[in-house]
């Protein structure tokens, strides 16, 4: 299987090699399995190990701990190519990055030395636990309680919608260490084998079923103070800053998915004959394809702009929210049109666009709903 080459603006020959490697693995390992594993709702841990050993699970993190040392503008394009071949795997890579982010950015040197090599090699898979059943968009209302007992926190509560819930090796968990609103939140690193930590059954989702999502239940989990990332009470800013970066990841995932839907539509339109000619020669179809391609390019441009700001050390919160908002809404529109172009076939599981359409929806919801993205953008404009 092959993926058509997208001409990209890449800063270095190194980045071009990296994209080449990504395409090779995507075509050889991801594309052939995506349909089968999605249908079976099978979580592809082996694929993530392979990406880890190829160095693709840790691209934006520092080289000294085993990361790839790549700018976001390169990492995100890798993520886009992965998602183009298999969205669930792209989401996994993005979420693993989100879970690793707190240690990489706010961990002490000792914590980084101890954990980052395992995280960055992909040997240990991470999950990020912020949402709770009663605290979604209002994340600061989280209620999972961490009570200090000597030099150990005793943690109890439920975390909701956890990607890799039950299959991760470590959990970056936001907990309440005091009642002081968002200033009462701290970040703890909880290993998967901690007594009292267990996963609820996986959620029965509309799509992206190879990506495991489950609630995590913490019942008196004991976490040594040495596993707190950052000072007590600084968990919320860490969580939000991880989400800024994570939003860019989801934007790149959405562009990959939208590109896959566009590729499938162009290819179908060229071979589908009606009225004695391929439907790709019908202007009504061409206009749809043109609009789809334009939106894909615009979305790619938006996430790259935000990524370049981040790489340059500029603020990028607003731009990341814009990229996430636009790219995921575009993915929804584009996958909808892809089904339309495929006609009846598009509504069957014999063509991939049916799956793309179901998968697109979740991207408008995760990492902050698109309504929350508008709040972020609006507040930034009017503050």
């Amino acid at each position, binding site marked *: 299987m*092959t993926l058509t080459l997208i001409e990209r603006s890449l800063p270095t020959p*190194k980045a071009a*090699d*990296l994209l080449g*490697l990504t395409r*090779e*693995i995507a075509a*050889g*390992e991801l594309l052939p399995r995506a349909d089968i594993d999605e249908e079976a709702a099978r979580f592809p841990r082996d694929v993530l190990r*392979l990406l880890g*050993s*190829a*160095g*693709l699970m840790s*691209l934006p993190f520092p080289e000294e701990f085993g990361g*790839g040392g790549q700018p976001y503008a390169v990492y995100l394009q890798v993520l886009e190519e992965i998602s183009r071949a298999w969205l669930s795997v792209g989401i996994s890579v993005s979420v693993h990055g989100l879970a690793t982010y707190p240690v990489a950015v706010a961990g002490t040197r000792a914590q980084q030395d101890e954990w980052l090599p395992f995280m960055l090699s992909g040997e240990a898979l991470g999950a990020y636990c912020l949402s709770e059943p009663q605290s979604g968009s209002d994340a600061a209302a989280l209620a999972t309680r961490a009570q200090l007992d000597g030099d150990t926190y005793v943690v109890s509560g439920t975390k909701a919608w956890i990607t890799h819930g039950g299959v991760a090796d470590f959990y970056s968990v936001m907990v309440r260490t005091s009642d002081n609103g968002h200033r009462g939140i701290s970040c703890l690193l909880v290993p998967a084998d901690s007594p009292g930590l267990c996963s609820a059954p996986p959620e029965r989702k509309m799509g992206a079923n190879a990506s495991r999502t489950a609630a995590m239940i913490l019942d008196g989990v004991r976490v040594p103070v040495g596993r707190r990332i950052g000072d007590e009470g600084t968990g919320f800013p860490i969580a939000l800053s991880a989400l800024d970066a994570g939003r860019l990841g989801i934007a790149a995932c959405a562009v990959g998915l939208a590109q896959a839907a566009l590729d499938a539509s162009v290819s179908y339109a060229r071979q589908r004959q009606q009225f004695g000619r391929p439907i790709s020669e019908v202007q009504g179809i061409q206009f749809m394809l043109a609009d789809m391609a334009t939106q894909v390019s615009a979305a790619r441009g938006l996430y790259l702009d935000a990524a370049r700001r981040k790489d340059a050390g500029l603020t990028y919160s607003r731009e990341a929210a814009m990229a996430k908002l636009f790219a995921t809404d575009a993915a929804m529109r584009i996958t909808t049109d892809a089904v339309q172009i495929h006609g009846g076939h598009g509504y069957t599981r014999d063509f991939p666009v049916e799956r793309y359409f179901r998968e697109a929806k979740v991207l408008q919801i995760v990492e902050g709903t698109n309504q929350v993205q508008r709040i972020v953008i609006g507040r930034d404009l009017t503050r």
Partner: protein
Amino acid sequence: MKIAVCVKQVPDTWAEKRLKPEDSTLDRESAEGVLNELDEYAVEEALRLIEAQGGEVVVVSMGPERAGETIRKALSMGADAGIHIVDDALHGSDAIATSAALAKALEGRGFDLILFGSESTDARMSVVPAMVAERLGLPQLTFAQKVEVDGSTVRIERQAEYGYDSIEASAPVVVSVVEKINEPRYPSFKGIMAAKKKPVDTLTVADLGLEPVTVGLAAAWSAVDEFAARPPKAAGTVIADDGAGGVKIADYLSQQKFI
């Protein structure tokens, strides 16, 4: 242990291949060049052997300038060094000339093991490993589905229709491997970066001590007189089952020499 792996750059297995009208040789520009898939198994086997027993893997390839990418690919998988035989005089070489050039490049370098893929996906002759062994006067263990090195004894399982043959020989030895032998690894990002710094020697026909007239298209023992593009896919034959459908299908398969 010092292992050589001979590799070839071939047009992408998935791509439509074309011959050049002017000299009926492969149009290498028409498709992306990739490391011959079967050679990847040989590279992987070499890497596994040195990971277990220590040693060095040298990748050897004959081909135009851009075949250097293929050597880099093998280096990014983990091989230590490369030898690139590159010379315009080699253009259009047949298997006999190719084996002569490879044998010259390999001889006297102290390789214990010379590994090949069992065939290239473009020419598909499977003769170069045997020819190189013959030219170097070395034993040949071909079509291996398993390779074991025990001191100076090299043992292989040769895939056969009825199972496999066990064959052994003393190193140095030429071995060709089939795809059943292993699962080749992907390069890693770090491997790709490291490969850029690994040494690749380039050798010309003169460096090898070969006479230019003995290699290349003019010296080839076979020639392509003419070629035609594959005819476009024709409509299939529909057989309606009027009670004798099975017989008609059998007749059709028999006409097409399938049965």
